């Protein structure tokens, strides 16, 4: 709960200012000041107690939205990292590992401030994960400034890739900075799934109209624009694009527009479960006759409690808890934290943590000293080149970076890939790729009425 810290400080000078103008209000000011200090104390909640001096110690900064609208994701990320490092007793050779939170609060400017504090006060040696693209874009410059490597960001969008390629030397600290490939590499799977269904005659849509929607963030727009292009390339017509504020929960006007435009498919994404579930439910409520592609609906454990059976027949892409290790992890996670983990945040973060452990061990083994500089050497000369890959993950067969793909991981069968699933009563059935398919793509009955 580091969140409110800086906001609170920002108010203090104003209080002093007022005091100069109205010297008689000292009592009142002291009182409101007191309340603020109270809030401050609670909000800080042990922030300072985490501060310690680094000595034979590696400090790993876990970046995530620990407060704010995506705090749910943040808590999953943190807990997965905790689990992975606890399993090795927080020990790399002779080094004690300390994990510290760097709260992005889902906002780049706050993330930047908290990042700076973590670096200057806690001596963070390496950072990892993060969820938002806008945050990544901001922190890339910070990483370059402080020369601190960053591994395995959950942020996906093209802008990170573009920025990296502008100055690969400067941004080398982000060589393996993405743990979630650019949306277009994944979104094509939906279009392929539908195109195949039409080609083999499984589906004969009334129109070839597609509506694109998404939260108004780099991620939402990046996904929406990628899949829009891919649909157009496949011969569909994109009739509208709507990007809305993250926490929006009322979609009736939008749904009416889609009904009027007779769209056969709506495709988009959101990272806020409340918002996403509302969209899916309201689509059913008004009787929208479209296939729904809801990329990321299932990313949060409790999505089905919110969306209910309105999610039937919805398409999503989500890594599956397929392997034995994955299932075991899920059980351990539930037991330890009493919440249901989602594969796309907890599972991915857990793999990221273990890959990072592998890198830290390698650094220790090669150089005998684990610091930012040496970790970056491993990053640049072993990870980026595809020499140090990770095959012990629970979600993907192999996490691999190559000079061609960086900062994205390699996306392909047997590497990083998300299957397309279709929901029925809260369970996802894999329908693509064919090799993994557990069931057939089903046309929602409400489309045939």
């Amino acid at each position, binding site marked *: *709960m580091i969140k*409110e810290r800086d906001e*609170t400080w920002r*108010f203090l000078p104003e*209080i002093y200012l*007022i005091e100069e103008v*109205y010297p*008689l*209000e000292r*009592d*009142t000011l002291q*009182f*409101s000041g007191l*309340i603020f200090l*109270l*809030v401050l104390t*609670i*909000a800080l909640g042990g922030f300072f107690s985490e501060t310690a001096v680094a000595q034979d110690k590696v400090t790993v900064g876990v970046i995530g939205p620990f*407060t704010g*609208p995506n*705090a*749910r994701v*943040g*808590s999953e990320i943190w807990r997965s990292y905790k689990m992975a490092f606890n399993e090795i007793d927080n020990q790399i050779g002779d080094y004690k590992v300390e994990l510290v939170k760097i709260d992005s609060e889902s906002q780049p400017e706050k993330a930047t401030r908290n990042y700076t504090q973590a670096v200057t006060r806690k001596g963070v040696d390496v950072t990892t994960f993060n969820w938002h693209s806008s945050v990544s874009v901001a922190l890339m410059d910070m990483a370059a400034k402080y020369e601190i490597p960053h591994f395995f960001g959950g942020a996906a969008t093209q802008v990170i890739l573009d920025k990296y390629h502008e100055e690969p030397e400067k941004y080398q600290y982000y060589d393996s900075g993405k743990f979630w490939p650019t949306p277009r590499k994944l979104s094509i799977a939906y279009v392929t799934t539908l195109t195949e269904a039409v080609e083999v005659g499984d589906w004969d849509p009334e129109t070839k109209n597609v509506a694109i929607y998404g939260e*108004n963030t780099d991620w939402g727009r990046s996904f929406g624009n990628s899949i829009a292009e891919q649909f157009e390339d496949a011969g569909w017509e994109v009739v*509208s*694009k*709507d*990007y*809305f*504020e993250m*926490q*929006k*929960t*009322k*979609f*009736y*006007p*939008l749904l*009416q*527009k889609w*009904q*009027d435009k007779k769209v056969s498919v709506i495709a988009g994404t959101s990272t806020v*479960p*409340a918002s996403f*579930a*509302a969209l899916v*439910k309201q689509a059913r*409520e*008004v*009787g929208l006759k479209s296939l729904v592609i809801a990329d990321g609906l299932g990313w*949060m*454990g*409790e999505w089905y*409690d*919110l*969306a*209910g*059976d*309105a999610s039937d027949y919805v398409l999503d892409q989500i890594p599956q808890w397929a392997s034995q290790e994955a299932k075991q992890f899920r059980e351990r996670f539930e037991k330890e934290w009493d919440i249901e983990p989602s594969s796309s945040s907890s599972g991915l973060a857990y793999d990221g943590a273990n890959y990072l452990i592998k890198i830290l061990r390698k650094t220790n083994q090669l150089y005998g000293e684990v610091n930012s500089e040496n970790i970056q050497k491993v990053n640049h000369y072993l990870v980026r080149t595809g020499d140090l890959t990770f095959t012990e993950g629970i979600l993907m067969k192999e996490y691999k970076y190559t000079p061609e793909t960086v900062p994205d991981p390699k996306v392909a069968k047997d590497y990083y890939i998300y299957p397309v699933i279709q929901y029925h009563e809260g369970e996802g059935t894999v329908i693509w790729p064919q090799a993994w398919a557990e069931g057939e793509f089903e046309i929602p009955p409400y489309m045939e009425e």
Partner: protein
Amino acid sequence: MISGQSLASLLLAAIVRAGLYTLTATGLSLIFGVMNVPNFAHGELYMIGAYIAVFSFAGLNLPPLVAILLAAILGFILGAIIEKSFFYPLRQRSKRRKIWIMNTFLVTVGLSLLLKNLIQAIAGTKYRGIDSYWQGGLKVAGISISVDRLVGVAIAAVVVLAFWLFLQKTTIGKAIRATAQDETGAKVVGIDLNNIHTLTFALSAMLASIAGASLLSLNPAYPTMGLMPLFSSWFVVILVGLGNIASIPVGALIISLIETFAAYSVGSGWQRLFSLALIIIILLFKPRGLFGSDVKGVWER
């Protein structure tokens, strides 16, 4: 062109939305009118209503209406506690009115942070929602609406009407209005302002809590869920004029219509822009709000 059916369906969506805005904006306006407190913790009272409802409906398996009623009662009590523990002592120490608004503003911002973090510490970051209170929906002339939304708008209408009658017809309601209209006059006739302030804050918290509870299936409980209703309520309150309670339903409907039609025809990213632009234009020509000819905070006349 918009077809008749689409138009009807959009109007319906706007009316449902207006019901929510009215509920939350009424309490906000009342607190400002009676206590001169710009309450930026109003959204958190809405949030707490949602949490109470989700725990009583999904946790304790109480019937929906009981869950909403419970949210109303506990919201009222919480409001009273907040007033007595924050604003009452502050009022005892505030000699100067000029700085009261600034101080209470700071207190409400602090309160908002406190409540958000407290809820996150207790209930965690999980979205706690329900599929729906009542199954099913209606379909009339091609327009579908779920029972939840119908009941939601009905609750808003009944509560707002009952509240209006309370303010207009009962002696205590009149005392609340009297305090808003002339604080000295209220003291002169013997009204204990401390009680009126506590009651006002409690009632306002109750309205916000009801709004949060009755729309649970639309907006699951979450620590930061209060921000959007807070903004919308302020839009409405600023539009009709601070402290003007009677015109709030009209203001709420105007904002809802603009947002609904802007989302439909221009794109949903633009709806706030349109409502804000309207507010700016109105404030340029009518600085006291659309209907705010003579109604303002008690200390500003």
